[in-house]
């Protein structure tokens, strides 16, 4: 006899918002005033039980208006999260093995307020926004994803970084017992996964800490419970499942930089003019595509966010600082 034991991570069909409902959610919410009243009276989205529920009352932003969203199923089943394997389908298969509750983040380095913070405390009192961003992978595919999150600067300011804080270093969870990719013997990536930003990049209003997608909590395979999203940089800069934030004076050396210094630089800004040594970056495949049409589009400088971020790199040789 087959006895099916429901895992806490299993999603009940009733929890899934269909895409048609999701796309018309604003009119739906506007119409359902009684519902809004109930939601407003509801629990804080950050009580730990609420981590597995939906986020009501998101602040909407104009980002991504007019873009076609990549469906939820593709966003959550086509992932690069090498801690769970290098196949695109591995993270969805194995990321449920990672425990994300409770979760704490260690804040270190050049700041007045450092220490270990519970995720709930870290996010207390913040208001969440929906940011629809393009995500351009260094492998030349891209998606459009409605993230739930908040500007990173709102969190970093809480720690009062001092004048020596020139960079911010981030680290992903290292727990080989729950992350099978970290048990591989033949990988050139070192664990824990390390990423970094210049402080002005980290403080830029486009840079967000995301806690969800599609109005729901972050699936493990997308970097639950807390991940970075830096939309004008290649996807691997948007580090997942963050356990450490460190303010440093020296530029951090990132995991990919260490593994392939000629292929991956510190900045990794989306740039159609600078090819990866093994493939062109001029164009990208917008996913999902179909068997007979690759849905190829031109890649835009800074992934189309040049107006907002180009000034960060004024006077820099982007060919050298790739």
């Amino acid at each position, binding site marked *: 006899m087959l006895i099916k034991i429901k895992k806490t991570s299993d999603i009940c069909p009733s929890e899934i918002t269909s895409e048609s409902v999701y796309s018309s959610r604003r009119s739906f919410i506007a119409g359902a005033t009684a519902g809004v009243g109930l939601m407003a009276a509801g629990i804080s989205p950050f009580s730990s039980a609420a981590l597995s529920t939906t986020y009501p009352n998101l602040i909407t932003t104009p980002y991504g208006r007019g873009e076609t969203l*990549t469906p939820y199923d593709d966003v959550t089943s086509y992932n690069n999260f090498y801690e769970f394997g290098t196949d695109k389908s591995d993270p969805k298969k194995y990321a449920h093995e990672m425990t994300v509750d409770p979760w704490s983040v260690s804040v270190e380095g050049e700041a007045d307020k450092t220490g270990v913070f519970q995720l709930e405390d870290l996010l207390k009192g913040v208001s969440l926004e929906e940011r629809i961003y393009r995500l351009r992978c260094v492998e030349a*595919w891209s998606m459009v994803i409605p993230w739930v999150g908040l500007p990173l600067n709102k969190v970093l300011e809480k720690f009062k970084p001092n004048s020596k804080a020139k960079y911010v270093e981030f680290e992903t969870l290292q727990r080989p017992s729950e992350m099978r990719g970290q048990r591989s013997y*033949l990988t050139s990536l070192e664990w824990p996964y390390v990423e970094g930003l210049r402080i002005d990049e980290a403080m830029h209003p486009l840079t967000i800490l995301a806690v969800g997608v599609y109005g729901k909590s972050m699936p493990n395979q997308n970097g639950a419970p807390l991940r970075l999203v830096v939309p004008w940089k290649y996807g691997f800069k948007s580090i997942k499942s963050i356990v450490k934030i460190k303010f440093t004076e020296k530029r951090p050396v990132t995991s990919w930089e260490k593994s392939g210094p000629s292929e991956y630089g510190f900045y990794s800004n989306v740039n159609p003019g600078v090819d990866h040594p093994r493939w062109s970056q001029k164009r990208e495949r917008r996913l999902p595509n179909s068997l007979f049409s690759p849905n190829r589009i031109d890649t835009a400088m800074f992934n189309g966010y040049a107006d907002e971020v180009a000034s960060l790199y004024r006077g820099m040789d982007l060919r050298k600082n790739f």
Partner: protein
Amino acid sequence: MSSLFRSKVAWLLCFSLGFAPLAYIVYLAAQGGLGAEPAKALVEFLGEVAILALMLVLAMSPLRKIKQLSGINRFRRMFGLFVFFYASLHVASYAFLLVDWQNFIEDIYSRLYVMAGFVAFIVLLSLAVTSPKVMVKKLGKRWKSLHRLVYVAVIAAVIHVFWQVRSDYTEAAFYAALALLLLSFRFSYFKRRLFSVQRS
């Protein structure tokens, strides 16, 4: 045992088994089960089938030395042609479904791994063309030396996989180890070749 291999049923079984991977992937594609980037999933799957089939073919000549398995030699040509079949589908789906024609030439230049794969494919093509019995007869002794090129094909195929690795070498190392093992059975052949080169 060897009479088993000689039966018509065995031949038909092997023949239909050879199409099983294709049937599987076509079924999956029709179900929409290939994910967000179906063409890429298809190309990768066909490539994996081709390289594994190539390993299988290379395993046949050491295996047939085991008396009970000597009958498998009968299927060597068929399996060799299946390798070519899947390699062709792999190349065709890459060329027609995945590649960006606008940047094709440039891509080939910057993607050395495509070159390595192409070398393997050209070898397999020349072996497939010379596989009919007429050609075997026509080429005589040269047929055998031509078909030794399969060693070049397997090495090129493994390089093709290696050059695509971004961080994890497990899969590439598996193919490399398998290829080395299979080539080690031909050690005496390589030794002879090396000696004859030195003498000339």
